[in-house]
């Protein structure tokens, strides 16, 4: 059964307190959601948490649920920041609303699109999902910026992500076109790559905008 939004938020808060801060529990009166809220009852009745002595604990099934919930929250944050470019408080707020939609396989799609990120924009870890494990197992590195390649690595140009139209035209004129084969020849002090039979030097700001499928 799908949990209410409030119940999910309790699970997230508990995950941070209990697992990430390593306390093993959370103090009820320090929770943002008031202890009298019905959401606690909802969680307890589904045997996800246990409340005793003013403290709230995970039960085993609850811990798994908490893990998934925090994962959805942080994926939503990444989505807001990286793709929709909504930042700051507004981004956090929108992420809080958005996360509740990321269930029943939507999270897998978002996670794959974001190339299985390991941390949220605030630097906190995103617990790995099954899709992440699968990607790691088959070695699918997905689409990465040119900066992530090692010198000597080759790949196909997937897309160019830039808001500067002139830069886009320049890159395209240099042969940086989706589908073209690109070889990174050197990654320090700046980047040298080869497309076709020509070599080009670019700085890291430009290298970050060329995305390559390995």
């Amino acid at each position, binding site marked *: 059964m799908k949990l209410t939004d409030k119940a999910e938020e309790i699970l997230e808060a508990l995950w941070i307190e209990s697992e990430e801060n390593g306390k093993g529990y959370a103090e009820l009166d320090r929770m943002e959601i008031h202890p009298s809220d019905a959401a606690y009852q909802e969680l307890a009745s589904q045997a996800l948490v246990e409340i005793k002595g003013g403290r709230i604990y995970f039960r085993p099934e609850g811990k798994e649920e908490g893990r998934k919930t925090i994962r959805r929250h942080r994926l939503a944050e990444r989505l807001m920041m990286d793709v929709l470019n909504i930042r700051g408080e507004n981004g956090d707020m929108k992420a809080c609303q958005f996360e509740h939609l990321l269930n029943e396989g939507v999270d897998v799609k978002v996670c794959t699109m974001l190339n299985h990120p390991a941390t949220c924009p605030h630097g906190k870890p995103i617990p790995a999902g099954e899709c992440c494990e699968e990607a790691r197992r088959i070695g699918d590195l997905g689409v990465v910026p040119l900066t992530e390649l090692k010198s000597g690595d080759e790949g196909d140009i997937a897309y160019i992500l830039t808001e500067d139209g002139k830069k*886009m035209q320049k890159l395209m004129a240099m042969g940086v076109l989706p*589908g073209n084969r690109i070889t990174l020849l*050197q990654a320090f002090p700046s980047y040298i790559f080869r497309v*076709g039979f020509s070599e080009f030097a670019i700085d890291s700001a430009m290298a970050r905008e060329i995305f390559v499928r390995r």
Partner: protein
Amino acid sequence: MAFWKKKGSCHEVPTVESAGARKVALVGNPNVGKSVLFNALTGAYVTVSNYPGTSVEVSRGNAVIDGETFEIVDTPGMYSILPITEEERVAREILLNERPYLVLHVLDARNLERMLPMTLQLIEAELPVVLVVNIMDEAARMGLEIDIAELSRRLGIPVIGAATAKKVGLPEIRAAIAKGHPGQDSASFRYSRLMESDIAEVADLLRGEYILSRKAVALLLLQGDEEVAALVRDVEGENWGVVEPGVREKRFERRESLHLDLSMERKTIVKKVLDGTFSAPSKRVVTLAERISRLTVRPATGVPLLLIVLYFGLYKFVGDFGAGTLVDVLEGTVFEKWFNPWITGVVNGIIPWGPVRDLFVGEYGIITLGIRYAVGIILPIVATFFLFFSMLEDSGYFPRLAFLVDRIFKSIGLTGRAVIPMVLGFGCDTMATMVTRTLETVRERVLATLLLALAIPCSAQLGVILSLLSKSPGALLVWSLCLLGIFLLVGLIAAKVVPGETPMFYMEIPPMRLPQWSNVLTKTYTRMQWYFMEILPLFVVASVLLWLGKITHFFEKMVDAMTPVMGALGLPRETAVAFIFGFFRRDYGAAGLYDLQTKGLMNPRQLTVAAVTLTLFIPCVAQFLIMKKERGMKVALGIGLFVSSFAFGSGWVLNKFLLATGIL
């Protein structure tokens, strides 16, 4: 193509006498051998001039083929007929305004796939295109095979395989020029149905006559080309009211990815054209040049290599040989021993009046001082420097150097690209200031101009100062550290203070090649020629002014006026003379110091302070004039004032510091 190709004067108006001659425009990417082809076709009558209204240089020359004279125009490198940079804009202007009788599109055989999209654009624009597939020799060495005849059939235009550096294909190119364009069937390729119909919708709105085909004009409108939009507005008159909304609507419909779609469709067409006409070996052939190239860009090997190049090129060749051996012969022997005594005798025999004699052969005489400095001291130094610089340029080393220093240059607000004017500055700061126009943003140009004016000593100055300070190694060390420190410090601060966006760095790295002697010598010669046109008059004027100053006693008053300043720097009052010289040219001032030192008037501390101050001191008059021309009066004045006060300030601090620590 050369990074920099200044030949002859900088007049604004083209002067080739070929009013009625048919024009042949050479177009293409940078580094495909356009300039070599241009030189091979034209020979002697070459003029380089700024394109009207811009600071981009265009070379024009005449070629006589089968008794008919053609005007050959070497356009700046362009990647696409939709221009981004000022160079590309000028190149297109030439196509648009000068109605060439033939357009030779020169491209690099190794990069057919990347460069053919522009051929498609030229064909689509219904320009009279002949394709020159150049650098076939190196392509063959890499195992590439190109079927020129089939390529020509598929594109529907004449195609010539060539290796212009080896003079292969030149007769065919000349024949093609003489024959002219056969006239073409409408373009043999098409975009996707959707793209074609979108283009047609816009093209059908056009009523006017254009040099480019309506299809090309429509495409440029769709891509948001403002110049073409302005042109169409003029041509269409009232009809613009119909065209403009049509364009706007289509642009909105395709706002997502028109540029990308177009590039991808062109790429598909090119792939089809090349299928069966172009084949590459499955295994890449790694050439020796590529191996050397790798060594120059890896920091671990590139930095030592750079030091070796600088040591042998600058220190040994320019410093020891140019500023040492050659100057000794020319200045010491030819001028001091033979020419000056002889000319003094001649002049004294003709002119009875003392002051007029002095004008020509006195202490500050036009001949004995002006010509002696220019020919005896400056000429050998800049000649060796330009030779060194042209060789580096021709070998393709500069883009690699630019790559190596890009990160460091970013911290002073520049990109690696700026390394070319900076290195050139060690030859002639005036010339280098002119070359800063190749930098992309105004901010970079201002920063580079400032650093050139302040901290980069030109070769003439460098030569004299090195020989001045070489007697006391400590002084040389202090001087170098001061300049390096000031270069970085002022760069860091200026980068913070001057507003503007962070520049981006991208550069094509052309294959390394052995410099060709003929090319290197031509470049050196044209640079020398420019330099002499520029400096010789100034040296003469300076001599005249100094002579005037001397006979009117104004000069002595100036020396008196500067005495307190010299005192503050801890320098003897005679140094003021060197600084007054230095106002005319910095190297001239340094040469003045040289005279003082030989008279034994200065100790090492004073010499160091004077050398640092003079190196930083106001740019020479010529450089100031170019600064004004390139950057405008306000910026030039600002930089001039800053540099002068900074120079004396640094001198004062350095003097106090040296006195307090007693290092020298």
